[in-house]
């Protein structure tokens, strides 16, 4: 059951499975009292899936781990104030997107160059050649634009949810998506990419 609303009934008859996704609830025969996860439990269960988002936001392994560690620290500091622990993923993703943007600014708004560092291109990754070519272009997008694509197309968020997590308007998400796709089309004219603005 994805995106369960968490009514009293559902909370008393479903147990949250943290290892897979915070939104997945598995029915059990006996009534189980669901207790709020501790931050340590949350971090252990969600490290791997959130790392993948971090990798896509950062573009390389080293910065991805930095990004996620720092976002986890910020989440830990505010854990008591995160009312819906099931939505803590959202808080981490928002923090990572903001941190990635800030890191980019502090570097002096580096413009993507034609020659990307070898380890950052994903050259060592076992992925299809056409995917690798597209990934290199996605990596070269500005961080907010890249974050928009990652949240929408990797984390499967709607336009509205993406806007909420990035702290911008729905129109801004649509605009960022549009411009990102236009850049990708320009860089890879052989690709046919159409927009799906749900």
């Amino acid at each position, binding site marked *: 059951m994805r995106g369960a609303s968490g009514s009293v009934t559902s909370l008393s008859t479903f147990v949250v499975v943290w290892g897979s996704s915070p939104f997945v609830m598995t029915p059990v025969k006996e009534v189980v009292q669901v207790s709020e996860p501790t931050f340590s439990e949350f971090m252990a269960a969600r490290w791997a899936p959130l790392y*993948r988002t971090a*990798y896509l936001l950062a573009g390389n392994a080293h910065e991805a781990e930095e990004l996620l560690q720092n976002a986890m620290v910020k989440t830990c500091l505010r854990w008591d104030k995160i009312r819906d622990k099931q939505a803590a993923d959202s808080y981490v993703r928002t923090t990572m997107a903001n941190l990635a943007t800030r890191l980019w600014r502090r570097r002096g708004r580096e413009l993507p160059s034609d020659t990307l560092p070898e380890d950052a291109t994903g050259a060592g990754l076992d992925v299809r050649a056409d995917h690798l070519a*597209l990934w290199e272009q996605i990596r070269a997008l500005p961080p907010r634009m890249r974050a928009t694509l990652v949240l929408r*197309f990797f984390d499967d968020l709607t336009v509205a949810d993406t806007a909420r997590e990035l702290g911008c308007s729905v129109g801004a998400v649509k605009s960022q998506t549009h411009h990102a796709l236009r850049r990708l089309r320009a860089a890879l004219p052989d*690709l046919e990419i159409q927009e799906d603005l749900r």
Partner: protein
Amino acid sequence: MTDTRIRDTLHDVADAAPVPHLDRVGFERRLRDARRRRTTVRGVVAAAAASVLVAGAAGGVRLAGELRDTAPPPASETGGAAKATPVQTVPVIVDGRLLVLTPDGAEHRSDVRAEEVLAMTPYGALVANERSEVLLVPVGRDGRPGEPETVLPALSDGVTVSPDGEEIAYLAPRHEVRIIRVADRSPVTTIGPVDMRERIVGVDGDTVLTMLGNSALRLRGPDGVRTLRPPAGQAPQDASLAGSVVRSASATTVTTFDADGHQLATGIAGTVSGLSTDGRWVAAASDGAEGGRRGITVYDAATGRPQRMAGYAGGESIDVISWLDHDRFLAGGLRGGGSFLLDCSVAQGACTERYADPDDTIYSPTR
């Protein structure tokens, strides 16, 4: 073809990227550093405010709390122990050492190693070092720090300073709470032994406020012990004591109590709150999610009557509320990737943005 290609690419890349093991040791180190920086940034942000405030303060504005007017009291009040400390200086920790900032923008570095600034008192800066010793560092009128004096020896637990900076409470061996005067380290009183689960969260005069786990508060003074129980579902996460008023803050609401343990005001909405130094007002910030109105509201601590503060509509998270005196307080928070600071006055019923740091560079103590 739709955006499926992008979706497939992102999943392909993400699945191919090896996930590193969770480095818990590294995480703990970052967490400790972050907590230390939060302490530092509060002081630095306050210093920025001090510069602004003092610059416009003809004749001198009295700023209590972190920016307290630290002119020494008459010697007769302190047994001659008063130190000459300047007005509106702010001690912060940078790179593990004490740094004193003055309103004119000067910085005075000290060789005193410290991990945390506990308070600015009329007698100087109270700091804790890596051995949990509490030191009093006198600060000259020009902002220059002097030689530190040991106030509490090593491994002092639960150290808390009163709102006026006159007393300090700590947990002594055998679980006794001791209160001493900052001025001359003379004893005020010894309380206890207290429950092992109690930790000190406030002191004012000869009375201490302790938190018992996350269920109740205890007010311990010359009249005995009073247990304060907030309403159901509002377990205290934070509390303070000033002017015979107790503030008990849960994650979303605030309850106040008088010195006899009677509830004064309940259901004050706020995820971050603070009690004025005279105990008259509670400032609370709410993001609106729990039914409270977004923004900052000041409540009469005795009646709960709200007074809306103009100048801040909400929208950004407020992380810190720090009262300067009975009228003014600072509210600091995060906006986007940076920090901002509001200067609020109850008398004026308004907050004014005094400081903004859009790139959050202030979080780096080495800058």
